[in-house]
């Protein structure tokens, strides 16, 4: 019986996000941007999670802190996000739409309202504590910040080690704190919050390698974990980014990585694959080589699982550019030479003989596991866990827990990397946004900014902040000298250096300087304006300066990082870069941007499972959807799949989704049509379809899918006995496996080799699924899988184990020694040369099954041109950022999901589609969008109406008005400046890129070239 009172009760427009790593922050920011209030709970003194502990990330080598720091700052500054650090949820009652959560905040003993984050307390504290953040490699004080860029930047006192709290003596921090922020009487607090939904992103813990004694961790000093090695590499780590050996402080040259430590082993370890270790080991080896060209790296691995987008190319880079040696071997043991501290690694070579190799440092690639408190966590939230302790979800509902209204994202749902965590964060957010669609905007308050200060008529007073970026810049460029020279430039009122300009304390410093020095323009010399300018623009706006009274001088990507070997010249170049930006900044004026309305509907291209999943989610969030499919039916490639590896009936699922899409009142399906052209801009697109109809929409989601490769290798087409995995699935479903038959499968057909040098990701899973199905129905069947690397990543390792237990044989081949296929009258003969096995092998198969991979759509390039989007070298669409913006395109208002992005399985496609829908929803929730201020301004007074601009503008912004003269539609303008370039009268000037500003830059950078 439904209680009528309960039914009437309105849902709460607030979401509880438990965990504040990169997944939790993503969910919180998406929700907050869509008009819901967020309580984010985290048990550490700072947000940031595992990613904040990483040095760089694969496959781009981007600095992890540089990427996550702006997210942390944004999360902490967002008006709709309430942070609860050092806190846990201790109870949750109620139901979907109306939960009550009890949050218990531990005492911090430092008042966040008073603490300035100056850090004066730390040197005074006499107690040293092992620094868990740096993985025990150094010590911190009992009063501490979790890491230098911590958010919030309020220190915390560790009650287990503080002398006053344990023995009632000391109080030195209290004496030195001028802000009076120390509060030993702090008892913490407990609060109840009402929330409509809960998203769980508690993250992971890593395997404790001392359990596997053969590796010598804890016994030998120079055996470290991969996470410890991240800290050794990190500029803000215990050795400042110069890798040193724990035993003697020497610089290790011979490095060995041992893969799968704590993973893929049910004995004393975890049975699953941790998904990320193959790639992070490659990354660490590449970065170690960058730090020290004399480093020689060896990776001992069992199976190279580089299954993600562009991952195989990254491994090639490790091998070819960084000279990393990959050895396929299980490690028997690690033994220390007590005299040198060096380590002997015992392994079995490919010829079967025992090998002993000496290394200076051994790095254990430890895996992920659920946190120690995972069982308790599941109990508090009333959700089911799987047999390993991860949150139980289904392949078809990857972000939904067993309890309605509670969603999950990230490694608590199973091992995964950063982009998959981020997209599950957005996907879980999309679920909550749909649940609470009618409650948007009910619990939140508007951001109130101070009035902008009118600086017109003032002499320029430029402030220049030169960032160390840890050692990223300061390790190469003499930043003090850069600041010193900048201070002498005309119009500069103040210049100084700062450790991390983007960290909260750095931004506070900038705000303080603007006030204290009465600055009216700011130059920050740090990293690229492409990622960091918006952050600093917000910062100066918060103290009343217009956002466009700012310029970022890129002295990291375009200076320190590419001139590491030429420190003096790099410093001279940094001076020039900074000075030319000062020259521009002196001439900057305030730019005021206007706003436009948003069409609250989305156009989804592609009626496969990705497009349909996204369409349903967007529609259930309360927005209109136009779903365009070029075929005459919905379903896409999934129409050819019968079941998942878990046994879910895919066709029943697909039929239900199609029916739901067709029946949904907010979804309009266009079958048999394509997209002709797209006009307009974010929030206001007009798209013309091939049937001539026009569609207005605010966002565009590309889910145009991929294609299955039809193989020509290995005798394909020469015999009915040679089929693909898809053909085998049909055969098994229609006829069964027969009795006593022999099946041979060949993996990586048409994948992982030029010109398609990428992993298709799904073929290993397909092979396992079908192998298991054959052996379960007919144990007398023989199944042989001939493979290169069995990429059963994450929890899919379980199926690999099950296949082996069922007697499926796995034989290795290499690309230079492929199996040979001969079609005989009543069978297919498959021969392996035996280079790997040691002796030749011939198998007569009843069926030869080719694991053919996935391809981008043949017309992906054409589509990319039409939408002005880009593809990677394999022809898959390129997202805005492979780590942190996995479903966004660089062009505003465009989003991406499914096979159009890269090969992936059904579960991953569903997660990604929900993520894209969440991102679309966050955009469409706005009633207005502020148009970029960087647009072309037309001076009609001096315009001669020559029409050069009208002819050349690709966006149709200039037009002939009713007076028969040229006018300019600023809403259509993208600020490209083509009009300004072609205008003979110079009637156009682009805001922020005016001719006088750019000429000033040229003049500045050419002063030294002038004849004396």
């Amino acid at each position, binding site marked *: 019986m439904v209680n009528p009172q309960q039914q009437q009760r309105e849902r709460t427009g607030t979401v509880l996000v438990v965990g504040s790593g990169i997944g939790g922050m993503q969910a919180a920011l998406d929700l907050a941007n869509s008009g819901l209030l967020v309580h984010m709970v985290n048990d550490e003194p700072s947000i940031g999670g595992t990613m904040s502990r990483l040095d760089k990330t694969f496959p781009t080598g981007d600095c992890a802190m540089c990427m996550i720091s702006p997210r942390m700052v944004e999360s902490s500054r967002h008006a709709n996000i309430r942070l609860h650090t050092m806190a846990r949820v201790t109870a949750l009652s109620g139901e979907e739409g109306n939960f009550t959560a009890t949050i218990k905040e531990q005492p911090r003993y430092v008042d966040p309202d008073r603490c300035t984050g100056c850090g004066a307390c730390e040197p005074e504290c006499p107690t040293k504590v092992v620094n868990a953040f740096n993985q025990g490699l150094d010590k911190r004080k009992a009063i501490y910040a979790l890491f230098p860029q911590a958010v919030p930047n309020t220190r915390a006192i560790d009650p287990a080690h503080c002398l006053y709290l344990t023995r009632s003596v000391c109080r030195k921090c209290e004496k030195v704190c001028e802000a009076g922020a120390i509060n030993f009487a702090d008892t913490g607090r407990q609060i109840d919050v009402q929330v409509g939904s809960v998203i769980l992103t508690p993250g992971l813990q890593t395997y404790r390698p001392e359990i596997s004694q053969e590796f010598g961790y804890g016994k030998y000093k120079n055996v470290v974990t991969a996470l410890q090695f991240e800290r050794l590499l990190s500029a803000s780590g215990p050795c400042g980014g110069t890798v040193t050996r724990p035993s003697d402080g020497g610089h290790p040259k011979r490095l060995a990585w041992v893969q799968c430590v704590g993973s893929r082993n049910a004995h004393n370890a975890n049975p699953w694959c941790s998904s990320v270790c193959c790639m992070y080991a490659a990354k660490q080896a590449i970065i170690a080589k960058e730090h020290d060209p004399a480093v020689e790296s060896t990776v001992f691995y069992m199976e190279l699982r580089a299954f993600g987008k562009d991952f195989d190319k990254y491994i090639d880079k490790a091998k070819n550019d960084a000279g990393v040696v990959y050895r396929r071997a299980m490690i028997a043991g690690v033994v220390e030479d007590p005299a040198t501290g060096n380590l002997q690694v015992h392994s079995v070579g490919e010829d079967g003989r025992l090998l002993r190799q000496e290394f200076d440092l051994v790095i254990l690639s430890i895996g992920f596991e659920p946190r120690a408190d995972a069982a308790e966590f599941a109990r508090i939230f009333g959700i089911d866990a799987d047999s390993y302790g991860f949150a139980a979800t289904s392949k078809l509902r990857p972000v939904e827990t067993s309890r309605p209204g509670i969603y999950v994202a990230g490694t608590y749902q199973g091992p995964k990397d950063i982009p998959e965590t981020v997209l599950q964060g957005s996907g879980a957010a999309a679920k909550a946004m749909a649940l609470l669609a009618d409650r948007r905007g009910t619990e939140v308050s508007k951001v109130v900014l101070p009035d902008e200060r009118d600086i017109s008529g003032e002499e320029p007073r430029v402030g220049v902040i030169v960032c160390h970026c840890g050692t990223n810049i300061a390790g190469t460029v003499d930043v003090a000298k850069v600041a010193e020279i900048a201070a002498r430039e005309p119009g500069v009122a103040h210049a100084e250096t700062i450790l991390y300009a983007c960290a909260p304390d750095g931004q506070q410093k900038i705000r303080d300087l603007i006030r204290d020095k009465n600055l009216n323009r700011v130059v920050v010399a740090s990293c690229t304006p492409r990622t960091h300018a918006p952050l600093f623009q917000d910062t100066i706006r918060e103290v009343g300066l217009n956002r466009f009274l700012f310029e970022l001088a890129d002295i990291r990507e375009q200076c320190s990082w590419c001139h590491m070997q030429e420190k003096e010249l790099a410093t001279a170049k940094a001076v020039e*870069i900074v000075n030319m930006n000062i020259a521009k900044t002196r001439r900057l004026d305030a730019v005021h941007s206007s706003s436009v309305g948003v069409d609250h509907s989305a156009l989804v291209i592609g009626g496969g499972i990705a497009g349909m999943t996204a369409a349903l989610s967007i529609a259930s969030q309360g927005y209109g959807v136009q779903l365009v499919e070029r075929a005459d039916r919905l379903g896409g490639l999934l129409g050819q799949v019968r079941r998942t590896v878990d046994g879910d009936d895919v066709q029943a699922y697909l039929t239900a989704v199609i029916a739901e899409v067709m029946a949904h009142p907010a979804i309009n399906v266009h079958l048999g049509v394509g997209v002709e052209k797209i006009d307009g801009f974010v929030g206001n697109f007009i798209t013309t379809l091939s049937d001539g109809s026009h569609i207005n929409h605010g966002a565009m989601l590309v889910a145009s899918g991929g294609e299955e490769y039809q193989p020509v290798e290995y005798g394909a087409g020469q015999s009915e006995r040679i089929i693909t995995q898809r053909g085998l699935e049909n055969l098994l479903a229609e006829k069964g496996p027969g009795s006593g038959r022999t099946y041979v499968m060949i993996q990586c057909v048409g994948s992982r080799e030029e010109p398609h040098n990428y992993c298709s990701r799904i073929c290993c899973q397909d092979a396992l699924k079908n192998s298991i199905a054959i052996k379960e129905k007919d144990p007398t069947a023989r199944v042989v899988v001939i493979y290169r690397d069995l990429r059963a990543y994450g929890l899919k390792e379980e199926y690999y184990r099950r296949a082996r237990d069922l007697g499926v044989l796995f034989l290795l081949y290499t690309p230079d020694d492929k199996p040979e296929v001969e079609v005989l009258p009543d069978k297919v003969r498959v021969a392996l040369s035996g280079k790997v096995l040691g002796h030749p092998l011939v198998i007569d198969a009843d069926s030869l099954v080719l694991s053919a991979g996935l391809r981008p759509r043949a017309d992906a390039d054409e589509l990319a041109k039409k939408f002005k989007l880009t593809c990677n070298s394999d022809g898959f669409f390129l997202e805005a950022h492979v780590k942190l913006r996995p479903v966004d395109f660089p062009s505003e208002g465009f989003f991406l999901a499914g096979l159009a992005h890269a090969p992936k399985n059904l579960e991953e496609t569903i997660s990604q589609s929900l993520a894209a829908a969440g991102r679309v929803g966050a955009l469409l929730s706005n009633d207005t969008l502020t148009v970029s201020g960087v647009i072309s301004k037309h001076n009609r007074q001096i315009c001669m109406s020559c029409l050069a601009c009208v002819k050349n503008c690709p966006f149709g912004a200039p037009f002939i008005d009713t007076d028969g003269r040229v006018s300019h539609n600023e809403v259509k303008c993208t600020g490209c400046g083509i009009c*300004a370039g072609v205008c003979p009268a110079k009637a156009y000037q682009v805001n922020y890129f005016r001719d006088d500003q750019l000429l000033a830059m040229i003049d500045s950078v050419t002063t030294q070239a002038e004849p004396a």
Partner: protein
Amino acid sequence: MVTDKSATQVAESVEAPRETPVGWQPNIIAFACHYCAFAAADLAGVMRLSYPTSVKVVRLPCTGKLDHVYLLRAFERGVDGVFAAG
């Protein structure tokens, strides 16, 4: 004629290139589109690719913004080369 002679002198001075001093590096200004070439210059840094420090990048909203006036001004002020990328 005077004008012819000066024209010949100019032609001669163009014909005879000046000697390139040892270690000399051309001073180059690159005009780069914010969305592609500037991003590529960033990527060069991310990939730790090296190039001469005498290359300086001026960011444009698009290479469409590149005005012949900028090129002329750069040469007038003595740069050895201009690189427009976008």
